[in-house]
């Protein structure tokens, strides 16, 4: 595995310009001071209640995500390139989903194999020929980005269903402002705290055509036992919209209403943080108690906007991912600004053969997996797990893709032994409204807290950092 690119020290140990102030500050601050602030941050997070639930852990139903107090810094010009790339990617994703449920030109042109779409469990036949307000499917996208050297950013994953993590982006910044005012005074950091306003503007802009000038927006949560519940309540609060559960809504005459202390109130836009499967027991899983009976009918009648739209999963599957550069070219006629990680599709014979021969060097991922589950990191795996994956690959090749083990960039991180480099990724949030695309400068930086680890997922011990976009 090649040596990782460090975002502060580069490859040759010369401090990169964006990090000059931070590096100086790290040299000045006493280690015990840093440790003290770290503990202070933890107390703040605990008190505010920024916790998440880990599925399958009975004793720790509410845990903190480790927060690293050293910010991750992006220079202004790096961010500008990222922004252009992200906008392009999301425009292509929207065009692609519209096409899949509409004219299907990309399938006819052979840009993407039909079975990948039609046999995909997240493909929603209910959406065939269905018009969605203003042709926007993915209103909120979380595009995961990794970096391998000074110039190369890869898209690692497109999250086009219900991406989460934005509350950490916002809270991390608030905590940093409280803990390190002097560090901010040495930098000019682009603000992120307008995200809720941008999100609200986006959601209001996509209300159904007939809705009132001041449309009613709600945030639909599965409830307090969901792992991202804190984020749901946090966002509803910042947006100034009601945080509703399925039981708070009902449908009458294909119109959605919420139950209030003053009777029924019509709902125009639902920012739903609940999966397609659970939206409506009449249309999808009949055993869902989280959803709203009749919601899909109201949606199909055009009386309510769902953000994101139903069926956007056809764009964030890992097998579809590998076609994304072609999708960008096909729909926009442009070269992709952001590259994909080179990907072997095990559904293709030569690719599978290559993967089986080189599995020790590769990362193998389940096509429908997420959160770092169902994944094999070849160089770190023991022989037994490799054998298991080999046989899985042979029986269900279509379920897997493989990628080279990337040397993800590292950032200085506060660990037990002091400050040390740790691998990071970045999830910026891309908002698509009727009028324009909005991206606040920054995103959620996730960091693998264990030395050498490449797994940044919070469900597996990853932490977060504040992400600073600087001037210039």
């Amino acid at each position, binding site marked *: 595995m090649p040596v990782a690119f460090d975002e502060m020290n580069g490859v040759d140990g010369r401090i990169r310009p964006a990090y000059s102030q931070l590096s100086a500050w790290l040299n000045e601050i006493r280690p015990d001071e840093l440790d003290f602030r770290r503990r202070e941050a933890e107390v703040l997070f*605990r*008190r505010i*209640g920024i916790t998440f639930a880990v599925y399958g852990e009975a004793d720790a139903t509410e845990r903190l995500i480790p927060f690293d107090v050293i910010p991750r810094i992006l220079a202004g010009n790096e961010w500008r390139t990222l922004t252009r790339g992200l906008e392009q990617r999301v425009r292509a994703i929207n065009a692609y989903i519209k096409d899949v449920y509409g004219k299907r030109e990309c399938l006819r042109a052979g840009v993407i194999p039909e079975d990948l779409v039609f046999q995909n469990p997240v493909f929603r036949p209910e959406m065939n020929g269905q018009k969605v307000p203003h042709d926007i499917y993915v209103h909120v996208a979380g595009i995961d980005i990794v970096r391998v050297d000074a110039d190369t950013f890869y898209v690692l994953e497109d999250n086009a269903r219900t991406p989460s993590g934005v509350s950490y982006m916002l809270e991390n910044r608030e905590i940093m402002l409280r803990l390190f005012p002097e560090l901010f005074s040495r930098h000019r950091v682009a603000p992120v705290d307008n995200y809720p306003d941008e999100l609200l503007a986006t959601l209001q802009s996509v209300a159904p055509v007939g809705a009132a000038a001041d449309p009613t927006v709600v945030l639909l949560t599965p*409830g*307090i036992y969901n792992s991202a*519940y804190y984020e749901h*309540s*946090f966002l*509803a*609060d910042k947006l100034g919209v*009601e*945080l*509703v*559960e399925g*039981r*708070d809504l009902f449908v009458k005459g294909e119109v959605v209403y*919420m*139950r*209030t*202390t*003053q009777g029924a109130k019509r709902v125009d836009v639902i920012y739903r943080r609940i999966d397609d499967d659970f939206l409506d027991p009449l249309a999808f899983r009949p055993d869902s108690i989280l959803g709203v009976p009749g919601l899909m009918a109201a949606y199909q009648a055009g009386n309510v906007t769902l953000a994101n739209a139903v069926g956007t999963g056809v764009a964030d599957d890992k097998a579809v991912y590998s076609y994304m550069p072609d999708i960008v070219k096909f729909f926009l006629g442009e070269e992709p600004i952001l590259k994909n990680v080179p990907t072997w599709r095990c559904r293709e014979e030569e690719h599978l053969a290559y993967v089986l021969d080189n599995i020790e060097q590769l990362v193998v991922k389940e096509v429908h997996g997420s959160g770092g589950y169902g994944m094999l990191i070849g160089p770190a795996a023991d022989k037994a797990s490799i054998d298991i994956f080999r046989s899985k690959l042979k029986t269900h090749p279509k379920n897997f893709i493989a990628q080279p083990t990337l040397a993800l960039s590292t950032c200085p991180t506060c660990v037990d032994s002091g400050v040390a480099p740790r691998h990071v990724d970045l999830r910026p949030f891309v908002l698509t409204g009727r009028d324009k695309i909005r991206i606040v400068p920054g995103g959620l930086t996730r960091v693998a807290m264990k030395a050498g680890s490449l797994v940044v997922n919070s469900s597996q011990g990853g932490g977060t950092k504040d992400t600073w976009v600087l001037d210039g």
Partner: protein
Amino acid sequence: MLSRTADNLYWLARYVERAEYLARILEATQRLTSLPIAYIGETNEWESALATAGCAHAFFAMYDEANEENVTDFLAFSTANPSSIRSCFEVARTNARAVRTALTMEMWDAINGTWLELKRFGNGPTSREELSRFLRWVQESSLRFDGSAYRTMLRNDSYWFSRLGLYQERADNTARILDVKYHLLLPANEHVGGPLDYFQWAAILRSVSALTSYHWVYRDNVKPWLVADLLILKEEMPRSLASCYENLVRYLDAIAVAYGRQGPAQRLARGVRTRLQNTKMEDIFQNGLHEFIQEFIADNNRIGATITQQYLA
């Protein structure tokens, strides 16, 4: 506002109030049972504490004997008792989490802080000193929550619904003490009272934090019929039935004005308040103190159900 949000706010306030009340009951009982038997008689005060808390039935399904250890555990720490202090705080915090957007930061901090601190007490204190500290802490937590609500909430329906929960719970609690102890409060000619009951009366006043108030209001030593008067009819006494209903009517009216519509909850509550305003203690004794209290408890429950039907469901 969402009906579910209003419902959560209402119950959040009720549970915090209940936790405080349970702490007071335990404190008063502990004090009473520390006296020599010659001062309080042969009654089982722990059993009476259970009755006052309204959960004697559930208790005896789990235990055979009502003694200090069992009752304290059941009322304060048991997870099997849905109304124990611990359960109250757990439910209150769950409700608070569900309506975070309707709480101020201070309120959330108060209830979440309490919930975090609750773990410090583990499965119950190991000594009487620790138990005392715990009971004081419960009351302080409730004061902090109530104070932060009072000082930081917008005066809109969120606030009003949480106040409704508080006053309904408080009225119910005061009425239940009266229900269990009414025989001690009858006028002298009906009850062979004596110095034996003095400490009982004091304990009743203590459990609603009214001992000092009593002296200020009546400038007299503790007399049972005056205790009844204080807890039922005195509007200046914050835990009296009259004061609770004055507030219930006020906040129900605020809601009705804001929503532009009066309903059955307003009418029922006004009826109860009018009765409390127009009644004299002599009449109550005449017609039966016990009957009066039981009727009140039934009315209070009916109003709770009506509020639920009208706004919270």
